């Protein structure tokens, strides 16, 4: 091999190896939230059963356990419809179009989205606007007269 070619290859290899030693770990660190994402169920209480009157839509909050260090944004709003004694529907407050925060209108029994005109029925079905699918529903259960929901039962954007 010619001396010149050898030096070129040496420089290229050395450079690439050094770059990789720096680049791979930093990318790994940046990807950490994805690589260490926890799965499985995550049940959290949202209030006593008696807080949810039968036949009514009630607002509730759920505390989101997080392992970071900030104190704010630990709570998320929800809508709970207790349609009968045993049946509870826990709606996510995120519009299924692009996640704007929907509002319940007691008068018309509809959910309105503030962004692009999404309107949902009392059952969470899309009635108008861009949303195509129904509002996300959390898996819910009652334990010791307390309503609990599984935070991981809906996708991250719901």
């Amino acid at each position, binding site marked *: 091999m010619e001396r010149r070619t050898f030096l070129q290859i040496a420089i290229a290899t050395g450079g690439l190896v050094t770059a990789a030693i720096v680049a791979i770990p930093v990318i790994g660190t940046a990807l950490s939230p994805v690589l260490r994402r926890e799965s499985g169920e995550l049940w959290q209480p949202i209030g006593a059963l008696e807080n949810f009157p039968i036949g009514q839509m009630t607002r509730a*909050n759920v505390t989101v356990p997080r392992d970071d260090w900030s104190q704010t*944004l630990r709570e998320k709003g929800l809508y709970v419809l207790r349609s009968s004694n045993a049946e509870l529907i826990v709606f996510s407050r*995120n519009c299924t179009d*692009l996640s704007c925060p929907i509002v319940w209108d007691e008068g018309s029994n509809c959910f309105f989205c503030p962004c692009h005109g999404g*309107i949902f029925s009392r059952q969470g079905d899309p009635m108008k*606007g861009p949303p195509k699918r129904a509002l996300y529903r959390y898996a819910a259960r009652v334990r010791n007269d307390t309503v609990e929901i599984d935070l991981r039962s809906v996708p991250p954007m719901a």
Partner: protein
Amino acid sequence: MAKRWRTWISDRFGLRRVYEGTLNRRVAKSSWYYGDGATLTFLLGVLVVTGMFMSLTYTPSPDGAYESIRFITEKQVLGWFVRGLHYWAAGMMVVMLFFHLFRQILVGGYKFPREGTWLIGVILFFAIILMSFTGYLLRWDERSIYALKVAQHMFSRLPWIGESVVVFIQGGTEPGATTLTRLYAVHVIFVPVLLGLFVIWHIYLVIIHGVTSQEERNQPIYTASQQRQLYRAQARSREKGENFFPMTVFKSGLMATIVFAIVLTLTLTLGPQRLYPEADLTTISRPIEEWWFYWYSGLIALLPNTIAPWFVVIFPIVLFIILILLPFIDRSPWRGFKKRLWPPIVVGICVIGILYLTDLRRRSPWTGWPDSEPPPVPAGVVLSPEAEQGRQLFAQYGCNSCHPISGHGRKVAVDFGQIERRLSQDYIRDYILQPPEGIAMPGYRGRMSAQDLERIVEFVLVAQTFPRSQ
């Protein structure tokens, strides 16, 4: 003496070459509106300086971000001014960015030998849009948090990797401390560094290839070398060329100054963007994106819902691909309008479309919202007691969440005060109880008493006779 010092400095610091290579050169004469590039560079400078000084105080943590911005605005000496300049310079930057893009399309600025300049410009375009977005997320008010959610939701639609991308951007499955540090790093380190490098590269290429000259727009040019010859001839000529410094600099500087005057005026009159309530995922809110994104939001609302969800993901990608491919697709020898009709048409449609959608989004006639205030009665009209009760019930049953009366209220559904063909009593009654299939209105059967129904019908009947506002 002074001259000797000047020579010494320019020699020892190597300024001579820089001066010869940038300022002291002949270029083809250009029109005033070619100052948009310089204006963008200037605005970038304003943003860098004001941004740097805000970062002295800003705290990239959800617990302190909002309050630190309040502090900058309210307590810091001239903090409101610095923030105002940053905000309005950013808004104007987006406006000028579109101006620049459209102008280049109009004059064929992407054509040989300027493909490289164009491609780097495309990257800059997306980088600046990203900056204009991440910037207002840092405010961490309700607009920020929901803007973040909306953008995240768009990413979540990417096939296969959608959810992971969301978690990656957010730094977790829920927004929190790691979200804000990420956004902050992207806004003040990652993108600015790249932006700086690419801007320098972009300008370097502009120096090498020049800007599309008048002659190039007047005649067909078939090769890059032909273009170079033509350009050089113009630069050298007395009438068609000029010295970059001070002639061109003065003209571009004029445009930059005018735009800066606008930024300054807006800052002094309107001040920095007001802070909405702090980010929070529990209270009811009606967020809206920053005004330079209105048009996109309007577009999403207008598209039929079979397309809209995919459109939001595909549009930026398609736009990127089209812009990247443009110089390779359009290789015709013409650059002006003479033989190129499509650019003025496309750009015209885009500009009108953007303005129209922006206004539409500002009004958002598609948004229903609860409102406890019953519709007002026009002056001079006296309602019967039944109709008056009906008016109250009209709000109580949320009819006014969608139906305006004589132009007042939300405009999602029919305005009974301005209806074309009056509806009969029976028709209204049946409609309220059970709207026809496919109509986005809840049926009230079973949850409205017969008396309430009659009162509301009465009010609607009367509303149909309200005097028309022209």
